[in-house]
């Protein structure tokens, strides 16, 4: 027998270690009278051996014995017992405070000096056995708890974070303070290829702080997949958390939407600044502009910061555990050290952005225990590049619908005035299509078509924004702020959306008509590919119509450009 944990403890066995036979007999008599069984050792070596062989539930230990004394034997047994509790009572004729102190220091649990009345030792034995039993119960409960936490942890990471996308470019790091982290990192694609990235930090850490993580992840994924914009996803998450979480538990969160055209829309509610770095230089920071989610019954006006991200840029999201990480001297890591790590060329050449910060952080805190969860997400500007391309236009012939079976439905919606600022008809249309016709990759394409056409109708038809504003990066930002402002004060205008779906033998045909209340525009040049460059369409505008033309079977403008009708045909793979 080499290890102590092989045998379970023998509940009625008491080991008596004493070199004097007379003492052994006296103690045996007492132990037997208590209804217990005695085993004997006559020196320290034997005591250790007998402990391993018989696993008694209590040991009565003499101090002075030949070969090895009781103090050393106790030290060894306590070491072997590790996490098990084996009560040891020293029974000795020896006197002096040093002896008692040594015995207790070695791991002894009690001390009794000869001569003594039997009742006194009996009392100590009963009391210590009771404590040992409680200890055993606590150890068992703790084990059960530990097992449950581990199972829950696996479930948690499996259900919540394993579905994240875009991880070939996006770098995520999470370092929980306990098994469970209050930090949640989520990514998901919208049907048009835009990427939504969320970093959340629930109050506190450990099991309770993760209660909200499941509804959070579900809401985020489901709504992003249906094509809802970040504003609506955030509002819905807030409503859900407000309803579910007890007061005092809430979620600090930041959301970044990286759009296919390189636009980043960033919102921060209670997290440290989200930062944009270009060639190691900080070029933008987005500070918290809203209380964390789950506190207010509904979200206030959500202000997004919009910037144009280059493929080589990086967006960095962090939780406060990064900046507040402490070292042994009580100093915090702080922003200055983080910047130093990111901008230091020595680090930059050697490590990725996340690793630069982590290496510096590690160096700073050394062995000092971590108090809060640490989370970092690095989103390179090239995360939504062409890799997520649109599904190729189907080869199905529109006219091969020779089947007699008619299977067509129509759906429409007209928005007037304020409702244009409030309701997203694209998401509704898409959800109709998905509900009625099932899941499929072709809806990604339909989403793109609907979005482009609807945004054109709203921006240019109703809000009368000039597309050419977007020609320069500055104009690009102005375009969006102007758009926000006009939407806010909008009280006129209308856009109607009509969708018709027809089932074909091996797929379907989607007809879309969008009509706005505007004056229309000169659409001819935009449809004519050859003229594109002649009329000087910049890289930042005019690509919408081009994209739609590429995806659809047909695109027709009428009513001076205020009405557009397109047909898209898909085949079931």
């Amino acid at each position, binding site marked *: 027998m080499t290890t102590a944990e092989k045998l379970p403890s023998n509940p009625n066995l008491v080991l008596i270690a004493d070199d004097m036979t007379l003492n052994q007999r006296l103690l045996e008599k007492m132990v037997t009278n208590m209804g217990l069984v005695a085993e004997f050792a006559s020196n320290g070596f034997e005591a250790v051996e007998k402990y391993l062989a018989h696993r008694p539930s209590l040991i009565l230990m003499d101090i002075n014995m030949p070969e090895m004394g009781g103090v050393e034997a106790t030290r060894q047994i306590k070491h072997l017992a590790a996490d098990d509790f084996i009560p040891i009572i020293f029974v000795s004729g020896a006197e002096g405070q040093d002896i008692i102190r040594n015995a207790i220091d070695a791991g002894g649990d009690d001390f009794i000096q000869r001569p003594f009345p039997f009742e006194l030792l009996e009392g100590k034995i009963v009391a210590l056995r009771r404590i040992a039993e409680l200890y055993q119960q606590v150890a068992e409960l703790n084990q059960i708890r530990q097992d449950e936490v581990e199972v829950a942890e696996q479930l948690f990471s499996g259900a919540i974070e394993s579905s994240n996308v875009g991880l070939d470019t996006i770098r995520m790091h999470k370092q929980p303070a306990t098994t469970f982290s209050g930090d949640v990192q989520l990514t998901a694609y919208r049907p048009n290829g835009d990427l939504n990235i969320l970093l959340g930090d629930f109050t506190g850490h450990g099991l309770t702080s993760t209660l909200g993580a499941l509804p959070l992840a579900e809401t985020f994924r489901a709504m992003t997949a249906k094509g809802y914009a970040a504003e609506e996803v955030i509002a819905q998450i807030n409503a859900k958390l407000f309803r579910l979480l007890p007061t005092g538990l*809430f979620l600090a969160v930041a959301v970044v939407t990286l759009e296919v055209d390189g636009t980043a829309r960033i919102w921060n509610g209670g997290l440290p600044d989200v930062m944009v770095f270009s060639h190691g230089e900080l070029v933008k920071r987005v500070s918290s502009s809203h209380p964390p989610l789950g506190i207010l019954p509904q979200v206030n006006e959500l202000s997004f910061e919009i910037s144009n991200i280059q493929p080589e840029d990086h967006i960095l999201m962090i939780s406060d555990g990064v900046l507040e990480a402490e070292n042994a001297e009580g100093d915090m890591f702080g922003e200055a050290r983080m910047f130093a790590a990111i901008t230091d060329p020595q680090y930059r050449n050697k490590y990725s952005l996340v690793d630069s910060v982590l290496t510096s952080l590690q160096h700073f805190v050394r062995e000092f225990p971590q108090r809060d969860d640490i989370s970092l997400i690095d989103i390179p500007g090239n995360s939504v590049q062409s890799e997520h391309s649109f599904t190729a236009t189907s080869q199905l012939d529109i006219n091969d619908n020779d089947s007699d079976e008619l299977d067509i439905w129509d759906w429409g919606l007209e928005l007037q005035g304020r409702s244009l600022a409030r309701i997203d008809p694209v998401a509704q249309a898409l959800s109709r299509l998905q509900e009625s016709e099932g899941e499929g990759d072709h809806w990604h394409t339909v989403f793109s078509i609907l979005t482009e056409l609807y945004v054109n109708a709203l921006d240019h038809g109703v809000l009368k924004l000039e597309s050419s504003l977007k020609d320069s990066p500055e104009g690009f930002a102005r375009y969006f702020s102007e758009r926000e402002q006009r939407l806010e004060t909008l009280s006129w205008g209308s856009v109607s959306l009509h969708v018709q779906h027809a089932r074909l033998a091996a797929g379907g045909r989607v007809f879309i008509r969008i009509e706005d209340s505007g004056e229309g525009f000169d659409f001819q040049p935009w449809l004519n590919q050859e003229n594109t460059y002649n009329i000087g369409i910049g890289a930042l505008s005019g690509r919408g119509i081009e994209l739609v033309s590429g995806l659809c079977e047909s695109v027709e403008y009428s009513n001076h450009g205020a009405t557009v009708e397109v047909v898209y045909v898909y085949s079931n793979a």
Partner: protein
Amino acid sequence: MSVTAITSDDKKTVDIHVAEQFDYSAHQSFREAYRFVDQPGTLFRVNLSKATYMDSSALGMILLLKEHADSLSGKVVLFQPNSAVNKILSIAKFDQFVSIEA
């Protein structure tokens, strides 16, 4: 105790003083400071002048206090946060629904 509470003679105001580290460790004593106050219209003044650090669970405690104050039609005012604590309050935008006074 990391939190002390002093009730004014007219019982209309409760001054709650928090210690240097305003975090989860103060949870119990912070709650004790107000939970038995049931005078309608009570003003709860949370004095943060000693606090050098405050974490998100402290923000949660303030929300719980606010809920209690609201139920009494009372009010919560946060007093004298230092710059570090004020930063945390402003990141969380608590100024949007709790009064903060320098």
